[in-house]
């Protein structure tokens, strides 16, 4: 298992203050201490987000925020882990629409659908997912593939519905790089994409704010559980010369915060079922539904970018209000 030096469930005092600030931002929503990471879910969707500059996100051009949703697994059936499998995504979309300040854009970081061997059924699931996602008030929505979407057909259906598997976009001074580590079932980025990545990075200043969006962790979080990208270290190596890089990803259905050198990696909760902490149990399996706390372990996040400082403040939000 790879070392997760700021995993919520691990105690590690090795984080330097610079890393602390990188993970924490200045707004204190994600708090990192020598004893681990604690994040606080916002209890009121209407609360204005106060950013690093003490202003609402929309008040300055130097700040904006976007929403990350992940691992919606549309098509999954398993009442023991989510008796509301067909309603959770709709509730999440309603929750995003209920945010007082609407984000600049929304990103889904993969596993939009649950896998199926049936090509027609895969497309049906993607169509249904797309129908629900189209109810978002925010019209700029970025999609990433997960292995459930793309590994069995090398991304053919995904591209038909959602476009390219890897791409870049720029938003208010931040360069976003979407990496595909799933359409090859071997869980690799692959040499061709690495060449493409390096060519893209070559155009950037070394202090440019860069956000990498991907599905699987780019580091060896838990290779025994398939929580890794086989050639992820090559991606990290390519990113290392750049001073301001942050990675947001999905796949593991829970928060995890990790540093590889100066690069922070933040995984998101899922929206279908939660999974146990890395290597915390003998066999990885979805966490059973808690009737006393419905939707526990599920959620999405808003990410406020302070472009000037290349810092990101993460606020975890529940599927439904408490």
């Amino acid at each position, binding site marked *: 298992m790879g070392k997760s030096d700021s995993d919520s469930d691990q105690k590690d005092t090795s984080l330097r203050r610079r890393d602390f600030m990188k993970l924490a931002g200045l707004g204190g929503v994600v708090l990192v201490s020598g004893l681990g990471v604690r994040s606080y879910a916002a209890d009121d969707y209407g609360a204005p987000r106060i950013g690093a500059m003490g202003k609402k996100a929309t008040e300055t051009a130097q700040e904006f925020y976007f929403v990350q949703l992940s691992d919606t697994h549309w098509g999954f059936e398993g009442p023991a882990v989510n008796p509301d499998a067909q309603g959770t995504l709709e509730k999440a979309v309603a929750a995003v629409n209920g945010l007082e300040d609407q984000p600049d854009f929304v990103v889904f970081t993969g596993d939009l659908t649950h896998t199926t061997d049936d090509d027609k059924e895969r497309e049906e699931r993607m169509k249904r997912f797309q129908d629900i996602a189209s109810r978002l008030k925010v019209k700029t929505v970025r999609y990433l593939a997960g292995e459930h979407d793309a590994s069995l057909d090398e991304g053919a259906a995904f591209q038909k519905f959602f476009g390219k598997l890897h791409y870049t976009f720029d938003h208010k001074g931040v360069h976003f790089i979407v990496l595909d580590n*799933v359409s090859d079932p071997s869980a690799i980025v692959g040499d061709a994409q690495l060449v493409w990545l390096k060519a893209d990075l070559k155009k950037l200043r070394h202090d440019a704010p860069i956000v990498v969006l991907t599905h699987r962790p780019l580091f060896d979080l838990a290779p*025994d559980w398939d929580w890794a990208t086989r050639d992820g270290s090559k991606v990290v190596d390519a990113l290392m010369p750049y001073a301001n890089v942050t990675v947001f990803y999905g796949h593991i259905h829970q928060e995890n915060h990790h540093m590889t050198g100066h690069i922070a990696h933040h995984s998101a909760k899922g929206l279908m079922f939660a999974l146990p902490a890395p290597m915390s149990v003998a*066999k990885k399996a979805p966490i059973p539904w808690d009737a006393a706390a419905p939707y526990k372990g599920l959620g999405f996040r808003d990410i406020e970018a302070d472009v000037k400082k290349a810092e990101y403040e993460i606020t975890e939000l529940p599927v439904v209000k408490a």
Partner: protein
Amino acid sequence: MNMNRKRLLQLLGATAVVTLIFGVRVRSGAAAAEQVIHLTAKKFEYSPSEITVKKGQPVVIEIVSLDRKHGFTIPDLKVRSDVKPGGKNIVRFTPDKTGTFNFHCDLFCGSGHEGMAGTLVVVE
């Protein structure tokens, strides 16, 4: 003639003598004994799913896929191979530590992929 053949077999012990230890076939020889394991892979299981081998002895795992392309990896021992259908996929390594190590399929193969796993037990 029979006696000569017997002697020849003794001399060629490296490949000819096969014994069964821990449910694993062992090809013993003058240089090093090989522990040969036959494994099948199919959606979404390996059979057998638990293997016991001896530390310090070379291991040969012969894996046959019964349906599609799978993977086989033991991350803690830095062992991995694709498992292609249509023949034997050979994995060779020598375990240098005792313990229980997980192996799993690392080529996404469908809805039960996450559960396609087993354990390798290495004993003294």
